[in-house]
């Protein structure tokens, strides 16, 4: 009888542990920006705040001026930033992009390749240089090559490019006859310097300008937060945005999704920030009915998700465990779930920008199966095990990691 009490006491002391985690409030990224009526782009910054930035490829905004085509050339019409290097009336004649040299490129690549070569041949490190001089072909082991940095350029120079005169700029630069000749430089906004040959007051001058990326937050009052926040979603009414910042093709009675939490059921169903949705459609979605959203590229998509409910935990010591919060489910039978257990969880995987479903079950501690399902396919592993029960080990690791994971999600940390 005393043994029974000891076992029961141990079970109650150890508890069944919980696989449930705090709701993950971290925001999902926006898959693509959306163009506004003023020609800028709404986007999300790293903290999930809606920002407005120049449209991709808009060099004029990156230069801080207005540009127009005039008489077979490009002329500055006005300044958008007081500190812009160009002045109204300047005619741009030529452009030379001063890309910082990558001084570390060859050295890093040679170092990596030489390392790989040494692995396969066991020769001194000078062999690659000699081989390259002889134009001979050498084999590399795939594994060794895979260890080399994928992007072999690692050390972009921070040095200021040397000043240029008009003649050099005309010779090395690209003639500018239309806005099309300036296309694409804005893809390097934030780090690129342009040397421009301009005609100002009848004289040719060299003007050096840095392309800057102006990003400013968009402030708008959330629409009915008491109804949407519990579901991990925030929206703003399009009519609440400044007229120039409203998405192109958006109607005033539509809502712009400004935030979707990682654990939001609608996020798992496919809702993303910067999607547009009508009020009645959002209400249907929040109620668990199918509803239609408009993606930034204009595609309409029907979504449906079970609304977020209250986490449920049922525990009968040594007999039965059930836990469910919509994102994670766990069922266990027997003492410490040793007779049978099934666990499933769906998590957002930032590196894939997709949701990944992990599941596992085991009968006893020997027959088991586990798997991970993502957009690229399913990895599953199963069978019988005698010595090391991997599924059971994962099960324990999940319990062990629960507190750390909860902290990552911001729970249990004092502000």
């Amino acid at each position, binding site marked *: 009888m005393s043994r029974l009490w000891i076992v029961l006491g141990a079970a109650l002391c150890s508890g069944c542990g919980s696989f449930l985690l705090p709701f993950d409030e971290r925001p999902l990224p926006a898959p693509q920006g959306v163009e506004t009526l003023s020609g800028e782009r709404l986007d999300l910054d790293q903290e999930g705040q809606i920002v407005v930035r120049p449209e991709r490829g808009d060099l004029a905004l990156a230069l801080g001026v207005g540009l127009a085509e005039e008489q077979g050339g490009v002329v500055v019409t006005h300044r958008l930033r007081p500190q812009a290097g160009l002045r109204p009336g300047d005619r741009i004649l030529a452009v030379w*992009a001063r*890309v910082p040299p*990558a001084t570390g490129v060859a050295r890093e690549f040679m170092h990596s390749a030489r390392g790989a070569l040494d692995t396969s041949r066991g020769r001194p490190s000078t062999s690659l240089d000699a081989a*390259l001089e002889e134009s001979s072909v050498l084999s590399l082991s795939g594994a060794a*090559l895979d260890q080399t940095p994928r*992007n072999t350029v690692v050390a972009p120079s921070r040095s200021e490019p040397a000043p240029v005169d008009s003649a050099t700029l005309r010779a090395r630069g690209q003639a500018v006859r239309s806005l099309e000749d300036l296309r694409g430089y804005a*893809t390097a906004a934030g780090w690129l310097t342009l040397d421009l040959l301009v005609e100002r007051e009848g004289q040719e001058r060299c003007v050096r300008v840095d392309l800057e990326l102006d990003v400013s937050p968009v402030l708008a009052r959330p629409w009915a937060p008491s109804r949407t926040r519990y579901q991990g979603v925030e929206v703003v009414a399009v009519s609440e945005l400044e007229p120039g910042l409203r998405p192109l093709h958006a109607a005033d009675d539509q809502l712009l999704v400004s935030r979707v939490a990682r654990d939001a059921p609608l996020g798992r169903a496919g809702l993303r920030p910067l999607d547009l949705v009508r009020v009645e459609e959002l209400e249907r979605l929040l109620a668990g009915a199918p509803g239609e959203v408009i993606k930034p590229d204009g595609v309409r998509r029907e979504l449906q998700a079970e609304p977020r409910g209250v986490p449920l935990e049922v525990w009968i010591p040594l007999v039965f465990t059930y836990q469910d919060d919509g994102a994670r489910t766990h069922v266990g039978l027997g003492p410490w779930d040793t007779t049978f257990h099934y666990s499933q969880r769906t998590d957002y995987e930032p590196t894939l920008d997709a949701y990944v479903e992990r599941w596992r079950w085991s009968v006893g501690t020997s027959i088991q199966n586990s798997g991970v399902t993502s957009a690229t*396919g*399913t990895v599953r592993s199963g069978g*019988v095990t005698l010595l090391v029960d991997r599924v059971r080990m994962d099960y324990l690791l999940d319990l062990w990691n629960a507190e750390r994971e909860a902290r990552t999600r911001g729970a249990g940390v004092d502000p």
Partner: protein
Amino acid sequence: MSTRIALGAALLCLAGCGSLDVSSRGAMPSDLLEPVGSHPEEPLLLGCDDQGNLSLNGQPLDLPVAREPARYGVGLADAAELPPPWRPPHALTGGLLITWLHRQSPLAVAGVRPFDVLLAIDGESVDDPLRATGQLRDAGATEVEVLVRRRGSQRPEALHLRSEAPLGDLSRVSVPFLFDRREGVAGDALGVGPFSAAVWWRERRELAHELRQRTGTELPGFDSRHEAHFEWGALGNLLYWERRRDLATGEERSRFRLLWFLSFGDDL
């Protein structure tokens, strides 16, 4: 007697078999490319990272990359969004640059490499990365014909492709001391007996690389090719046979090994 049996079993276990691993993940490695505006005094080098994002001399370019990671394992960026001096010589007027390729992608196996240009899918020319990846996604397991322009070439090349299975699929079933079966898009394997020491075989598609000096540039580059590698072993690899076949050229090499060190056949 029991000591001998134990020693024999230990030897078999130590000898074991080759790896039964058939997994294959990650992107095709890509080397650097000099765009048309590169100058000996100020060289420009276009690169792409393992997510397919383009960079110039190590600095990131804000160019959207559309990816289809499930079936055809390809990432595309529009070269027309680059300024003309930063475009590759084979994409001067723009085109969809392949900036990311899964190493087991049907395109990669057919010989397509990062920085090649995708021109058309099923006879329909493509100029929008999102639409092109959408077309490949919709194609699923059906056969598609793609038109590509290789790096260093101006001539389009037609390729017939078929996606056999999702690229991330991998399964394993095992019963200790009896068998271990693994199956994935890169190959499959079976082992029988304790630690697969009785008999095992594996067929896998592997990626091999060759370092080359590219013409017209001082930068070293490399070429990658897929090889079909088939091997089997028995009795703790007392008997072992392997064959490698280059999928591009069809060249085959094979060898047989006896008693772990007596090797007959080609040098592998």
